[in-house]
């Protein structure tokens, strides 16, 4: 680079005629679409944070047993309705490391409730990588090592304990395993059904379209919850928790597909007139291939964004069903099952921590909403 006397800068490198001037921009143009989407998505702060949060949540699921100090149905009969405990670091100005104060329960027979006294003279340091109740790491590796456990003679109820003396915090972690996957399974079912029916309706049109459209209209015009209720009431009560869980997620998915199918259909109606579709057809591609290879990839990303937005409805749906006692049932642990315990006003008034499971529900649902909004905004082709 040289600075000429008249103030201009001139590049010293020799001029080569063959240099492709548009090379830097080409990189931009040739970048695969997901890179472009990612770039735009990164600018959407709220969506990005929500996405990271959800990623962490889902990554924790397989190791929930390791992080939770207790197993979900482990009862501490001496500690019913124990209030949340604090983890302290300093005891009387001296650094002890993470510890808890032991508590003792007394039955208040006048007000008919449990009261707890904290013994602040004896700090009891927490144990790390210690042995506790057995659980399955990643669902199949039996293990009994926990990240943190209570020292013998004390408890560690971060968010209190419930009416049977079970740790609310641990149960929330275990509950996440079901509550968060219900949405994923449900959305998969709804996705498959929605794409299948939406695409054949949009691609073939005519009578198929008419029939599918009527079904969509009918399903969309019905209130979901009563149907969910009725369908889950049909689940035999002698089924195991796992099968009930799967059937509930499938029920949630079955009633959700019409919205997605409608989006797919309207998109297909316009896309099937494109030249590349005609070209593919003339070369002898079968409808299934045209749909899968040529049409669907066009707006798969849009579908994923809208699917993200309908996961919260499923999570809330599972919660509502379990809350009413028609969804998952104990001994299965989900956030809805936990809230079932907090159903009465008394527990909100006296033991407010039993309603804590509502916080993760609200946060996760919000996160999915933000993520979906962020995705949709970054996919919008009309915005620069």
């Amino acid at each position, binding site marked *: 680079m040289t600075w000429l006397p008249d103030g201009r800068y001139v590049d010293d490198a020799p001029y080569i005629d063959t240099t492709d001037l548009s090379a830097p921009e080409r990189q931009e143009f040739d970048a695969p679409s997901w890179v472009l989407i990612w770039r735009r998505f990164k600018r959407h702060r709220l969506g990005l944070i929500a996405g990271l949060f959800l990623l962490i949540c889902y990554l924790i699921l397989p190791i929930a047993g390791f992080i939770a100090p207790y197993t979900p149905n482990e009862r501490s009969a001496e500690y019913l309705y124990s209030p949340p405990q604090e983890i302290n670091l300093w005891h009387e100005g001296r650094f002890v490391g993470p510890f808890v104060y032991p508590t003792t329960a007394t039955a208040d027979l006048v007000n008919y409730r449990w009261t707890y006294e904290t013994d602040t003279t004896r700090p009891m340091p927490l144990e790390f990588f210690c042995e506790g109740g057995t659980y399955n790491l990643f669902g199949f590796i039996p293990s009994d090592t926990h990240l943190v456990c209570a020292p013998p003679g004390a408890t560690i109820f971060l968010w209190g304990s419930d009416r049977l003396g079970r740790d609310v915090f641990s149960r929330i972690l275990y509950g996440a395993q079901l509550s968060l996957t219900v949405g994923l399974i449900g959305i998969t079912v709804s996705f498959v059904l929605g794409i299948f029916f939406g695409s054949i309706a949009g691609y073939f049109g005519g009578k198929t379209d008419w029939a599918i459209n009527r079904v969509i209209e*009918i399903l969309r015009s019905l*209130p979901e*919850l009563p149907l969910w209720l009725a*369908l889950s*009431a*049909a689940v035999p009560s002698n089924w195991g928790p796992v099968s009930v869980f799967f059937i509930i997620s499938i029920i949630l998915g079955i009633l959700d597909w019409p919205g997605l199918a409608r989006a797919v259909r309207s998109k297909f109606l316009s896309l099937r007139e494109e030249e590349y579709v005609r070209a593919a057809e003339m070369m002898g591609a079968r409808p299934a291939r045209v749909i899968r290879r040529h049409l669907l990839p066009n707006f798969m990303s849009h579908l994923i964004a809208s699917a993200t937005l309908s996961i919260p409805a499923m999570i809330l749906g599972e919660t509502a069903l379990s809350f009413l006692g028609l969804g998952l049932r104990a001994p299965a642990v989900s956030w809805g099952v936990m809230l079932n315990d907090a159903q009465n*006003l008394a527990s909100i008034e006296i033991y407010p921590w039993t309603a804590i499971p509502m916080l993760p529900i609200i946060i996760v649902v919000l996160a999915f*909403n933000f993520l979906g909004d962020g995705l949709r905004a970054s996919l919008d082709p009309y915005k620069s």
Partner: protein
Amino acid sequence: MMFLRYAVYRFVTMLLTLVVVSVMVFVIINLPPGDYLSNQIAELRATGQAEGVAKAEFLRTEYALDRPLWEQYLIWAGFAPGPQGFSGLIQGNFGWSFEFDRPVGEIVGDALWLTVLVNLAAVLFVYVVALPLGVVAAARSETWVDYSAAFVGYLGLATPNFLLALILFYYGHKYFDLPIGGLMDPIYEGEPMSWPKVKSILIHMIVPTFVIGTSGAAAMMQRLRANMLDELSKPYVETARAKGLAPAKLLAKYPLRMAFNPFVADIGNLLPAMVSGSVLVSVVLGLQTIGPFLLAALKSQDQFLAGFVLMFVALLTLIGTMISDMLLVLLDPRIRYGARGQ
């Protein structure tokens, strides 16, 4: 005249939909293995109560439960003559509730109009709240008004209805002395209508209306805001502004009218969710609507009661959707009547 034709067309579609829905409902309530009466008969046999068995057997033939399913459906819906001739849903005979041992119509009686009332109130609430908030959020977009409205909206969408209900009830009672549970004071139950009763119902409806309406209002507000923003960025708004039209008048005169159509049309999409919400909230708060009946009936396989409640809920949504469709046609002359190509 055109509108009348559209109205008739829309009404006929609704009836057809209702028929399909009735088939669906019937299949769903018959999904669980066994039925209330066979369970009862088995139980009575086991305990050796011959008298009860005879009654249950009588009910079985009386309500045609011993016939094949498709025949049962036709009789239930009133398309085919049953043991007492044509007497099904169409003829206004809703069947027998085995659990309560009374006719379904008698049990749900009051609950029906209370359900309609609660849902109407919720729809009104949605409009009354979402309209001003949405307009203000759009007019003052990207200010604290907009952000706080959006925040409240998101929170409303994310909080499960039943929890919101519990919490509001608790705090409403604690700080505003709102009554807990039910739709009226117990003393008015079964009493004829009177002013104190109306007042009691109104006070009891505050929390349920709020709970059922919140998520709907939030969704509606967001959509109205988006529509308004679209309209506000159009040149005619700029022209009006340049000519010196007062901001409030400007908003109300043009963009609001344009943004209003989707607002009306959306109630059709919203209604199913709201009726769902009202069922759930009624169960949690013990409102005397048909929600608790539905839950009880589903749990005990009381099929006629469950079937009727499901049909009623569906009918409610379908009528609501139909009305919103017609309103939309009246509001927006660009929407074509009837089928495509006319």
